[in-house]
């Protein structure tokens, strides 16, 4: 059933067979999954997709497994919400929110990539999986590995949000916190991966893992009635998601599945305290200058040395998109604005995406009369600390107590 023809280096094109490989041995470029689109074209039609279960696997031909998924079979098909109140507030004609904050089972878009990575790990015969994570990947690998009966080792920076640590530990993985930044964790993991021979979701399984992100875009297009929006705004950490959004869009277009073509402008969002990709885009370069000490409340985006930064700048540039990096107070305001207008509690990364959208609207990079999709990739309950909301008043249990509270409110 596989439509995968093999792996190829994105830099020099060297071909490799399907295996737990992620780096080209000639030039260190990242390896990417290649598909037989001619075969897929005849078989994956809108009608075929419409008959399938509502999960990311309705696009199985465009995902890199050899057999049916064995992990995360119910992941995906999250709501695409028409945001009318927020649109009205911002003076926008058509605004949509793709909300992976309710993705099953671990409440972030990482369930998509992990479903692919762990299903692939089982196909390749691994009994232990692992990852380096800024939090959401940790939650997802821990949850999905528990369900799949795989042993899991998870490595995180020592200063992650407490709720992300709890939402990992509860599944019983081996969790190790590293004194250092995410980039330090990554470096260690690349050495651990080489030595222990585990299936690392974001290292040796990366070519497969990263493909799972495409399902986020496929769903957006299908949920819009097989139409591509004029704009998509996506958060960027390592730069993989935005790169795969672009790839997914071009694939659907190549397969003739999009009405009106794929001229979507893809915009990138990072927090001002760690914005190496945004900086490169805004300075018109494709060389990424790493950020040594990221400093932002958006910890899931705090990657100073983004592996796919170069491809992210290209995806943005080729699509005619742009990039913006809101400051931490703007991120918090955006989280509250979204919650108060649309009833959606997104995590800090979603605040970054909405905050960046506001900047791009002000700069005229996004037209107010054009269809816009904002990517919400995680759940607000995981990152409550930065909100610092005023506590509620405490009153006695008598009606008179409430009456006096209302009297104060009236004044």
């Amino acid at each position, binding site marked *: 059933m596989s439509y995968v023809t093999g792996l190829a280096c994105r*830099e020099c094109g060297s071909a490799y067979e399907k295996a737990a490989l*992620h*780096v*080209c*041995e*000639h*030039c*260190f*470029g*990242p390896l990417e999954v290649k598909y037989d689109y001619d075969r897929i074209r005849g078989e994956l039609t809108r009608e075929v997709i419409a008959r399938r279960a509502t999960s990311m696997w309705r696009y199985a031909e465009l995902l890199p497994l050899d057999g049916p998924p064995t992990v995360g079979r119910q992941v995906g098909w999250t709501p695409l919400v028409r945001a009318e109140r927020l649109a009205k507030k911002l003076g926008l004609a058509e605004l949509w929110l793709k909300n992976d904050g309710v993705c099953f089972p671990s409440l*972030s*878009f*990482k369930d998509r990539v992990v479903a692919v990575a762990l299903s692939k790990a089982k196909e390749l015969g691994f009994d232990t999986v692992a*990852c*380096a*994570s*800024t939090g*959401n*990947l940790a939650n997802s690998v821990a949850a999905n590995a528990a369900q799949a009966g795989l042993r899991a080792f998870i490595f995180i920076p020592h200063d992650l949000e407490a709720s992300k640590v709890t939402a990992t530990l509860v599944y019983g993985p081996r969790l190790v916190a590293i004194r250092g930044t*995410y*980039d*330090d964790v*990554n*470096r260690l*993991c*690349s*050495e651990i*991966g*080489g*030595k222990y021979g585990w299936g690392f979701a*974001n*290292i040796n399984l*990366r070519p497969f*893992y*990263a493909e799972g992100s495409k399902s986020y875009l496929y769903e957006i297009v299908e949920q819009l009635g097989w139409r591509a929006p004029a704009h998509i705004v996506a*958060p*960027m*950490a*390592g730069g*993989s*998601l935005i790169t795969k959004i672009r790839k997914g869009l071009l694939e659907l277009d190549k397969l003739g599945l999009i009405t009106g073509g794929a001229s979507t402008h893809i915009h990138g969002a990072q927090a001002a305290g760690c914005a190496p990709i945004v900086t490169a885009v805004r300075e018109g370069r494709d060389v990424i*200058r*790493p950020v*040594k000490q990221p400093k932002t409340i958006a910890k*899931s*985006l*705090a*990657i100073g*040395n*983004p*592996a*796919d930064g*170069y491809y992210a700048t290209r995806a943005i540039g080729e699509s005619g998109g742009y990039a913006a990096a809101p400051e931490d107070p703007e991120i918090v305001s955006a989280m509250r604005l979204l919650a108060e207008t649309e009833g959606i509690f997104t995590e800090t*990364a979603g605040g970054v995406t909405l905050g960046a959208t506001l900047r791009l609207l002000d700069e005229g990079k996004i037209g107010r009369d054009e269809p816009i999709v904002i990517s919400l*990739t*995680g759940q607000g309950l995981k990152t409550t600390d930065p909100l610092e909301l005023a506590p509620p008043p405490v009153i006695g249990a008598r009606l008179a107590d409430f009456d006096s509270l209302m009297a104060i409110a009236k004044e």
Partner: protein
Amino acid sequence: MATVRIPTPLRKLTNGLEEVAATGATIGDILTDLEKHYPGLKERLCDDKGQVRRFVNIFANDEDIRFLQNLETPVADKDEISIVPAIAGGV
């Protein structure tokens, strides 16, 4: 002599060794010395202009050489140098 940690994709060139010794006053010299003992290694790490490839990270005693002086970064005896491929993650 400095110690150089070799990542898995390059170990075919170092007869499977995870760590090798190299001499040189700078990172650039170290790479040249490595090439002498393990032919083919430098072209994997550097492009035609001699610059470190986009997806290669080199660390001198835990510090990314892009935060130091790149290939001109000085190397002292017993320094530890790591070569690490770029890794995906986040969000």
